[in-house]
């Protein structure tokens, strides 16, 4: 049995995935873990979207009569040092997490996609210049770069997103570039050149859509990483700020200080982070298995 193991076989499957719910079912059967991940991600997205309707309490209003109450029927996950309902804050925190996760990973992966494809297509000095620049950014550890950027631009959701996005760009660009380099030599790109198409048409119509597999894989893997990074930055006091409900923020400050008398304060937000990142990774892994098993992220 000599199966055709071409790099684009992944895309073929992606094409299949695009059509019909039957494909979704097949995905679920082939990748039960991935489907479970997708379900959890969906739950978080729903929580984020419908936070206003789902959350039992206002996440911002302090209730000084209920400071640090343990989990109970009215406060399932207990309350924090301001008496705010932790469950509600986690539900609203999903907004911050999903916002940061989606926007940062989308922006990071997309920028990386464009840079990677351009770098591969133009070769020569453009490529080597971009490569050196990426080298520079790659040699900064993720958290260090993010830390420096937040220090420069200040904290707040938008800046945190920027800080998380920038370190992701070179990572995605690397992967996309190597895929695009392969693509550059693929016969259908040659055929497009033989048909006399312009550079932009070749890049946008023939190359870009075909690095979608690594792009999607990077994208999903970034989502988990973005949420983790946001939590780490918040933990260092550099993320979003009180009273905005955000998971990393909920782990910092009071949660740490009062961990012993109010263990629910650090435990539940931590679980929320772990569960969401876990789900994103499960889903991302399954996606990688389906799209491009050879790609390593």
């Amino acid at each position, binding site marked *: 049995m000599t199966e055709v193991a071409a790099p*684009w*076989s992944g895309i073929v499957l992606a094409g299949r995935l695009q059509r019909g719910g039957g494909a979704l079912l097949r995905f679920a059967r082939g990748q039960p873990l991935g489907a479970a991940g997708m379900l959890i991600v969906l739950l978080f997205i729903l929580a984020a979207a419908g936070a206003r309707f789902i959350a039992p309490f206002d996440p911002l209003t302090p209730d000084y009569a209920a400071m640090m109450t343990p989990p109970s029927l009215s406060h399932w996950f207990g309350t924090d040092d301001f008496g705010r309902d932790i469950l509600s804050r986690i539900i609203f925190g999903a907004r911050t997490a999903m916002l940061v996760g989606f926007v940062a990973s989308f922006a990071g992966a997309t920028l990386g996609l464009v840079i990677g494809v351009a770098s591969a297509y133009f070769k020569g000095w453009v490529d080597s210049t971009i490569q050196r620049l990426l080298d520079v950014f790659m040699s900064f550890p993720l958290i260090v770069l993010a830390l420096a950027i937040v220090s420069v631009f200040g904290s707040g959701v938008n800046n945190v997103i920027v800080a998380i996005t920038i370190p992701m760009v070179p990572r995605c660009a690397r992967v996309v570039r190597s895929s695009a380099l392969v693509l550059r030599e693929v016969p*259908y790109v040659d055929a497009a050149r033989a*048909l006399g198409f312009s550079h932009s048409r070749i890049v946008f*119509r023939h190359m870009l*859509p075909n690095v979608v597999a690594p792009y999607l894989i990077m994208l999903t893997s970034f989502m988990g990483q973005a949420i983790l990074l946001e939590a780490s930055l918040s933990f260092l006091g550099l993320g979003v700020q009180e009273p905005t409900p955000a998971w990393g923020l909920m782990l910092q400050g009071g949660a740490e200080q009062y961990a012993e008398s109010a263990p629910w304060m650090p435990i539940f937000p931590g679980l929320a982070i772990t569960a969401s990142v876990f789900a994103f990774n499960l889903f991302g892994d399954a996606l990688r298995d389906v799209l491009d098993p050879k790609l390593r992220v």
Partner: protein
Amino acid sequence: MNATQMASPAQAQPVLLDVADLRVHFPVSQGIVFRRRTGTVKAVDGISFSIRRGETLGLVGESGCGKTTTGRCILRLTPSSAGSIRFEGRELGALSHRALIAVRRKIQVIFQDPYSSLNPRMTIGQIVGEGPAVHRLTRNARQTEARVRELLGLTGLADDVYGRYPHELSGGQRQRVGIARALSMNPMFIVCDEAVSALDVSIQAQIINLLETLQREFGLTYLFISHDLAVVRHISDRVAVMYLGKIMELAGSGELYDHPRHPYTQALLSVVPIPDPDVESRREPLLLQGEVPSPLNPPGGCVFHPRCPLATDICRRVVPVFRDIAAGHQVACHHV
């Protein structure tokens, strides 16, 4: 049988493509900070041939002999280092960008791998229709679709493949799509780069027949690049045999196969098994010693001399001239 008897109708036609002393050299560089050239791969090293309108020229040789590079060079996918390629009398290298696009339309290509030569994210209709639409050969979407459906019909594809994706088709069908795409530009000249090599024999025969039909119908000219000597003989009017970037022998196909003159051609023909045990039992293959040397460091003199049973001292020193030994029969060998 001699060469003149083999003359096909194409003989009377004007020359469509003329390649003279074409060279493609790839520099091999070293150094990361300061790059310097340390060697040259002579993928194609001074070849000349011409193709007349309506004719099929077969280009055969073993892997790495430069046949594919030659084809890519004619398609302007790989730049040439020296020499000229004239198409309809015009030097391709001298054309402006705009003029090149116009000429390029007339030269199309069919690739070997039917899996990788079609963009997996486009439907068959888009793949075939893109060229005519972009180059305004059709005026609107409706015309484009009609044109695509016509081409699909011509290449023997069912009408329902129009909206499907390449992965939904079989290898043979995909190769037909590749042919339809090439035809969509109303080309005069098609480079078939190992166009049937990846197909199973039963499918291969279908495609060969299709190529022949189309040639007759549209007066196409083919450069048929292949390592399969049997297929080349079947489809070509004339055949050129390449070895290490050079043409060793070029002749009408009957002449070349029945009366090969170059020792390399002779050996090559002798080792190809013929699917007939009776014939085979009477043949004795001429086994060549050793393997093809690296094009990075080709042997001096005649490039074939290290493996040539006839090699003498002159072969080691002097590059043999590619010369006529009979009408339409050229050989590069000191001993012919």
